[in-house]
């Protein structure tokens, strides 16, 4: 039974090819299959190493990208929670105000999130990241979709490892190419140098600024790089 499900989803993934232009590898294919099959509006795969360190691998649209970045800014949300607990996190109605994530819930509501589901990606004995699914209207995942999502998360791990270690390493996994949040890292370095503070401290100040001004972190980083925000703004 479980094997049949796994095989069916495996076929759905492998009958497609990775989008060479997007550079999102097999992880991108898994996201596309998730949106098609699981009754959700958007999907994203994020590799996480700590609560505060993440790398967006693939997202089906700008909305999912924005929601992943929101979690990167705040260090909280369904993906972060699934990664730290190692358990799926299922929020069928984001608007119930459970105050699990005081920062994320409000911002997600403004962004029009009705429901969010996050699945940890297991690799050996650790977690590699999460498969995050978003709906615009509130609804739980039915049993069938939930089982498919769990199986698809297992396939996502395989997809990531294939992207990272196959004959052809996908652009998202290459250390020598800039990552999705490269500007944030550069701005962090600039700010740390300018204010003579630690990198962690610099990152924290960028994040605080983004959160308090309701701006995406990458936009704040761009503003710093283009000298549109004075570094003094971040001084204590």
């Amino acid at each position, binding site marked *: 039974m479980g094997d049949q499900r796994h095989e069916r989803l495996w076929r759905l993934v492998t009958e497609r090819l990775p989008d060479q232009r997007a550079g999102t590898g097999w992880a991108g294919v898994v996201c596309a299959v998730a949106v098609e099959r699981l009754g959700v509006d958007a999907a994203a795969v994020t*590799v996480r*190493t700590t609560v505060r*360190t993440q*790398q967006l691998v693939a997202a089906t649209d700008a909305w999912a990208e924005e929601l992943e970045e929101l979690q990167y800014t705040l260090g909280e949300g369904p993906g972060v929670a699934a990664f730290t607990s190692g358990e799926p996190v299922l929020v069928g109605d984001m608007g119930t105000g459970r105050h699990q994530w005081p920062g994320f819930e409000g911002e997600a509501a403004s962004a029009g999130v009705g429901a969010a589901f996050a699945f940890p990606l297991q*690799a*050996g*004995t*650790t977690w*590699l990241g999460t498969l995050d699914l978003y709906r615009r209207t509130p609804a739980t995942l039915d049993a069938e979709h939930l089982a498919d999502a769990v199986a698809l998360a297992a396939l996502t*791990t395989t997809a*990531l*490892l294939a992207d*990272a*270690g196959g004959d052809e390493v996908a652009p998202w*996994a*290459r*250390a*020598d*190419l*800039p*990552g999705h*949040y*490269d*500007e*944030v*890292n*550069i*701005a*962090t*370095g*600039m*700010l*740390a*140098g*300018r204010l*003579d*503070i*630690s*990198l962690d401290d610099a990152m924290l100040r960028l994040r605080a600024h983004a959160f308090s001004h309701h701006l995406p972190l990458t936009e704040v980083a761009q503003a710093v*790089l283009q000298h549109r925000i004075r570094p003094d703004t971040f001084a204590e």
Partner: protein
Amino acid sequence: MQDYDWTQDKAEFVAEPPDAPHPMSGTPDHSPLARQFALMTRTLLHTDTVAGALDLVMHTVQAVIPDADLISITLRSSDGRLHTPLETDPRGTELDQLQYRYNEGPCLDAARKEGTACTHSGDLAATPQWPRFGPAAADLGFLSVLSTALVADAKPPRMSGAMNIFCRKPGKLGDESTRDRALLLATHASLALAHTEAVRLAELREAELRKALETRDVIGQAKGILMNRRGINAEEAFDLLRRTSQDLNIKLAELARTLADRHTELDVPEL
């Protein structure tokens, strides 16, 4: 080996009539053999160590092949040595060492032959197959043997091997039903070995991936530090990092990390 109550288990299966249905035919829901196989398959799915999986397979062998007096798993490393990671009796290692010493024996045959998965002898004392190993094994008190190949398609550094079943009585372990059961169980053992290899590979790649992504973050931060210090753009900062890493013969990642870690205390003259 774990402390299973093998004796009791074995008694249960011996109690089964000798003409019991073949494990893969007959009525799967009611045959104790089929139940044993089903239980093993289910348990295997939740066993994540190779030792645990092989242990379970051997336990099942003991249960479904009543003539099995000694069971061992032998793995051959790329240097040709024989390793005996699991055995129900310390004489399993001894038997393997004899095969290694004489360079002949059922386990070597099973692992060596292509296509033939099983090697059997019901008369170890006088078998022409293994003129030296045979009598030596008989001296240890074992007169029948059945060896089944494991991971037949192994390529270095992965090891090929065999699952060996020994019986103290002559003329045993040669019937078709025993052979079928041994083959089926050896398949499970091979799968367990292959699966563990995959898990290990996943962990390895996962660690590499993690490192690559962390390196990338640090390179980004180092670029920012240089941009601030030199008033240059991101591309120029990356070029400077790369050039310096070549000039100083330090890895780019290491250079970036030093710069990121020490930027408040050090003023690297080259940068």
